[in-house]
């Protein structure tokens, strides 16, 4: 199974949101990281076939998904950024309706709904109206919907927004267990979501995929570029406008600052163990002026 993007561009009037993305994905978990406005959701929507590219094409096993049509959509599970519901649908109605849309058989639908509802912790709430669910419950219901037909390609847009830490971990475990022999594309701007489970992490900015590496490669790339330095609070105010700072912690009346820099930022700065989050900030050059994009 292979999903390939060939010079995919997407324009909204005069604004180019995707700029000729070419990419090949096989089985495995792919994390798509990028700041807001990078074009992640547009790319996800094109892959989910709910949006058409202005130019370029998406190939599934070498065939254009527009010509494959229903057959391609039968292979995908999609969790959009905003999960929506009909006002009078219960959780069970929503999943049954999704199953009908996916063309699932009745007996299998019943079985899968039970499995997934238990798995995402909604079994006792299936009879309640979706509209009465909390944000986290709605998100979990959306995840169950995406997994319902056991899709070959799972496309998740911001799947963990609204989930509490326990639910996030549970979600990661579900996806990890699920991902074997399947393609999972997980778009987020929360680095920790993809750090643990993604085989490949794509960093996206300004409508293009800027980097594709494994989590380990990103961390390796940051060796010698992450520093810890201590400074008074007054100095920090000025310093943070000139440097990429990934963390600040108060320590014995001074500030312990985690700085990302190619060179030693201060004489007393010591090297720290890098993380994916450091790489994210480094690669996107997250200087304060840019963060406001």
């Amino acid at each position, binding site marked *: 199974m292979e999903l390939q993007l060939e010079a995919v561009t997407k324009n909204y009037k005069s604004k180019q949101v995707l700029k000729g993305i070419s990419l090949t994905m096989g089985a495995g978990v792919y994390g798509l990281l990028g700041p807001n406005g990078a074009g992640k959701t547009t790319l996800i929507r094109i892959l989910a076939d709910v949006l*058409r590219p202005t130019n370029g094409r998406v190939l599934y096993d070498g065939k254009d998904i527009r010509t494959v049509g229903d057959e391609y959509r039968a292979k995908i599970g*999609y969790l959009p950024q905003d999960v929506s519901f009909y006002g009078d649908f219960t959780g069970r109605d929503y999943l049954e*309706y999704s199953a009908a849309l*996916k063309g699932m058989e009745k007996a299998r639908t019943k079985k899968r709904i039970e499995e997934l509802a238990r798995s995402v912790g909604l079994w006792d709430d299936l009879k309640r109206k979706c509209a009465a669910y909390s944000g986290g419950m709605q998100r979990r219901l959306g995840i169950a919907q995406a997994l319902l037909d056991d899709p070959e390609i799972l496309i998740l847009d911001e799947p963990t927004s609204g989930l509490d830490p326990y639910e996030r971990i549970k979600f990661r475990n579900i996806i990890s267990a699920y991902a074997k022999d399947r393609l999972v594309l997980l778009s987020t701007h929360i680095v920790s979501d993809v750090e643990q489970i993604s085989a490949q992490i794509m960093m996206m900015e300004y409508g293009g995929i800027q980097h594709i590496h494994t989590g380990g490669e990103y961390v390796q790339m940051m060796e010698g570029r992450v520093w810890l330095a201590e400074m008074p609070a007054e100095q920090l105010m000025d310093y943070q406008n000139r440097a990429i700072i990934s963390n600040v912690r108060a320590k014995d009346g001074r500030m312990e600052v985690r700085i990302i820099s190619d060179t030693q930022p201060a004489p007393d700065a010591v090297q720290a163990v890098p993380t994916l989050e450091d790489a994210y900030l480094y690669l996107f050059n997250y200087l304060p002026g840019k963060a406001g994009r």
Partner: protein
Amino acid sequence: MSLFRFELRKLLLNKKTLLLLLCLFVLYSVVGLTSTMFLIGGNDSYRAYGELAAGWEGPFDSEKAAEAEKIYQEVSARYGTDARMISRSVKDQPEVILAVNYHAYTERVEEYWNGTPPESAEEPYGIALLQGKLAELERLGKQNTYDYRELSASLQRLEELGEPEFANALLWENLCGNWGEHMMQFLLFVPLTFVTAPVFAVERSSGMDNLILSSRNGRRKIVTAKLLSVLAASTVVVMLYLAATFLFGFLPHGSFHGWDAAIQSLPTYARSMFPWKVWQLAAVGAAWLIFTGAVYSLIVCFISSRMKSQMGTAGVSLAILFVNVGLAAMGDIVNQRLGALVDFGLANVTLMKEVFGGYKSFNVFGMYVSYPIMAVFVLGVVSALAVLGIYRGQKSRTVV
């Protein structure tokens, strides 16, 4: 559960719509009840009318016509010449209502034999008039023209139907009025608009488009399910209207008298070329309303598939409906100029009195085609285009 059942639930079988249907049933019942109460006074008046009319039913009688004329002259001097208005003014005087109705029947008999005046803009009607026009065409050697064939066919039909007979079909006349006049378009088609408007637009406004468009059945099968649910919903709403107006139209007087009279005994259908009984007309009328309701719903459905909101869909649909009603109400001169636009516009084509109450025909490549057949054809084409447009639209639809 199949997609159709879900779509039906979303459109019809939900609390809000069921409540709306209940309110509509009450409204339609009141319409049926009040229209029949305006027709004639209480039950006693209707019974008395029936007993009096029993002696007047049958072929034309000049003595009765003279008697009715005398009463009509007296009463029209006081209440005007509109038979309906007179009847409403003298609801408790069945003998006067009978005379007024017999007077109107006398005029229909006169028209049957002598026809429309030569200066009339209407299509020629009446034995003598048709014979005269045919003779004129024969004199000019135009026996092979479409006009000659059309007039010959009309004359033949008219002769076969024979002179109209007088019948007491008051309640059926009322029913056909409820089912086939302009008020029906407001009572039935406006609610129908609001029931069917959400069918596609709701997916955009609710954001469910994401789920639908990315699924295997979200491009074709869902359209079939939605179309079937729209047809089912429109049939339910129309049936509700038909049932309520039928039930409460007849219930107060507990009578179906006149069900087997010829439809030419109903004033509105006096010129109809169909050799039907009144009950047959009612059956055809009911079927016609179900059919035209379905076509209108498909048009609304098409609009819904192109709009982002339900209110936008309802607004555009109602604008189309009211523009049609406005055009049809603009009088003969405008109607003649606009021709087919009015004939096959929603205002006229949904009214059974327009389609089945006359003798209008169309020249299609030299062939004589009656209005109902042309109407079925045109509405069929419109429906097919709407359905095709919806399928094509959904195939290329994207989220916004």
